[in-house]
């Protein structure tokens, strides 16, 4: 864009009234990568310092969650796992992906209000705050994945080469979580209601997402609601990758991909749009 000779006389930063819809400056995000690492490290340190069981909580959470789902859908509703996969393993795989999405959403949604002093006093790309919650979430995910590998070995489940695509589905879960979380975070700066609404939404979502059941045995009357949820395709695709269950119908799958990218983009756009008022309103 510019030659290196004019680089010297060009200002390093130009501050103007914000106009565009996407004022996220990639170079600036890159300049502040050190801060991103520090914030992420702080998040991780604080989460497990002064907890007695420390990392064990990370293992216990999805195990207890999967146990509860197994009880509800397996014993009470009498559903069977697909393709001979025990319903507990199926629930655990779903919970692993789902928990990453859920924790990422809730942690990133609280990241702005939790750091209001920083926002009022120092400049840095605000998007770093929701992004910084990703690391601690990934650590949780890693532990959960280890347990899952153990389960797969124990039950001798092998999905085949599709397993190499598993990280792709997890990345998409991360995108939708970050998108939703950033949107909630930026809106909660002005309206604190979001802090109350989001947990309710997060409680309701697993019931319209095939976490403890599959799309195939979703109740017919509610099938449309499950299909309308972009996470349905991702969950089915993830289980296809790790458990060898059926790949989701193509329509559902494509819709999921588009929906996920859409939610992520919308989240970033809303965040960028509201970002300029943070310091004045928070």
């Amino acid at each position, binding site marked *: 864009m510019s030659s290196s000779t004019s680089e010297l006389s060009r200002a*390093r*930063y130009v*501050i103007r*009234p914000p106009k565009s819809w996407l004022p996220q400056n990639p170079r600036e995000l890159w300049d502040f990568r050190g*801060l991103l690492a520090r914030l992420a490290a*702080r998040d991780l340190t604080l989460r497990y310092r002064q907890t007695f069981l420390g990392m064990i909580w990370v293992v216990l959470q999805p195990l207890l969650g999967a146990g509860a789902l197994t009880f509800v859908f397996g014993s009470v509703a009498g559903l069977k796992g697909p393709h001979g996969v025990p319903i507990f393993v199926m629930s655990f795989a779903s919970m692993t992906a789902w928990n990453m999405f859920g924790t990422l959403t809730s942690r990133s949604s609280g990241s702005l209000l939790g750091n209001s002093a*920083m926002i009022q006093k*120092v400049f840095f790309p605000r998007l770093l705050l929701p992004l910084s919650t990703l690391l601690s979430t990934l650590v949780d995910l890693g532990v959960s994945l280890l347990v899952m590998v153990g389960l797969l070995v124990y039950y001798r489940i092998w999905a085949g080469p599709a397993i190499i695509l598993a990280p792709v589905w997890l990345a998409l879960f991360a995108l939708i979580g970050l998108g939703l979380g950033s949107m909630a975070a930026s809106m909660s700066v002005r309206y604190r209601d979001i802090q109350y609404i989001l947990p309710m939404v997060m409680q309701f979502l697993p019931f319209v997402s095939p976490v403890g059941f599959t799309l195939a045995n979703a109740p017919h009357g509610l099938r449309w609601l499950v299909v309308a949820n972009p996470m349905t395709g991702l969950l089915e695709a993830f289980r296809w990758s790790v458990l060898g269950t059926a790949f989701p119908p193509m329509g559902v799958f494509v819709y999921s991909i588009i929906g996920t990218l859409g939610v992520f983009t919308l989240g970033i756009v809303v965040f960028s749009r509201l970002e300029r008022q943070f310091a*004045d309103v928070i």
Partner: protein
Amino acid sequence: MSSSDLALSVRGAGKAYTIVHNATDHVTMAEVVLERLKHPLRRADREKFWAVRNIEFDLHHGEVLGLVGRNGAGKSTLLKLLGRITAPTEGEIKLWGRVGSLLEVGTGFHPELTGRENVFLNGSILGMTTKEIRAQFDAIVDFAGVAKFLDTPVKRYSSGMYVRLAFAVAAHLETEILLVDEVLSVGDADFQKKCLGKMRDVATTGRTVILVSHQMDNVRALCDRVLLLDHGGVEFIGNVREGVNRYLERPTIQTTAADPALRPGSGEMRITNAWVDCDNSAAEEPKVIRFTIERRSELAERCFIAVTINDSEGRAIAHCDSNMVGAWFTPGDGSVDGEFKLTSPWLQPGDYSVDLFLCNAGVLDAFERALSFTVRPGYPYRGGASDALVQRDLVVPDFDVRAIPGSIARASSEIVMRAPDSPEAS
């Protein structure tokens, strides 16, 4: 000069805030929606309030600019624009270098993290790279004097140690452009001198600095130019002497800062009322100031009040921190009244202004130029004073000289002959 010498250039910058009248502040969406349903057609009266407008100036590399102005003149807003904390509503600001700010010391400090972890976190929040922090780490720890406690969580630090470490990180920022707000260096009386010394160092080492100060002797000593803000506009920019004189000419009492919420400081406690009980008093009469401290957040339980008395030249002649005399204020859930009394030294006849600060670990409320009072002409000496001589002094000494009773002795030639430092003299 070519533009490559420029460190900073501001062109027509302005920041407007929207003030909503006839509508109460709706914090929740439910309230907003309800309001909309009740009055579908009414639009709240919105008024734009320009905190600063049409600001234009350039700053060259290595220059130290003193930013002066009364409270509410727009100094903080201008600093926020330059520090990119908030975006301008109009105009353009160009920066040739990174901007670091000493606006708030200890931003991002977390009580659960150790001193070491906080240095790295706070340093990167302030804009230092990990490499820079590593290079400065020993200097920071030395300056703060907390080497022994580096791996202790800062929640176990005394408030003095905490402030020292926080300031030490900020003081070692090496950005090309530095924004310094002198007010916020107050807090720990022992440490204040060190901080001011460090600020002087920074200002004299060829860095580009914007210094906000009410201490005109500091502005005179440190700055190359002065920018005087008034009502959100540039009233004057140019040489230091003229700028300082223009600033001092303005009346010191103002109403804007009377709104506690608009004042600098973290706001956990505020001075809601303050008045002088010594206006037009004689030099020897006690100077009494009364004030009310209100607690506004549960985060702070107690504070001390720092009273600074400035003369008409803007020189601080007395710093009186109540913690020095063991006075702390604990407003409980409401407010507490207090009284400050200065009995000595006596003050020179003339006009004085008073700055009030509430502090504990940091500055809770900075109420600069909060009050003013006048000391009546005349000196309290029984024998009358030689005005020409006494007038030049900073203060009026409360002193007495007398002969020691019973010490009258007859002079003898022997005594007169003695050398004055002779050990035999009695």
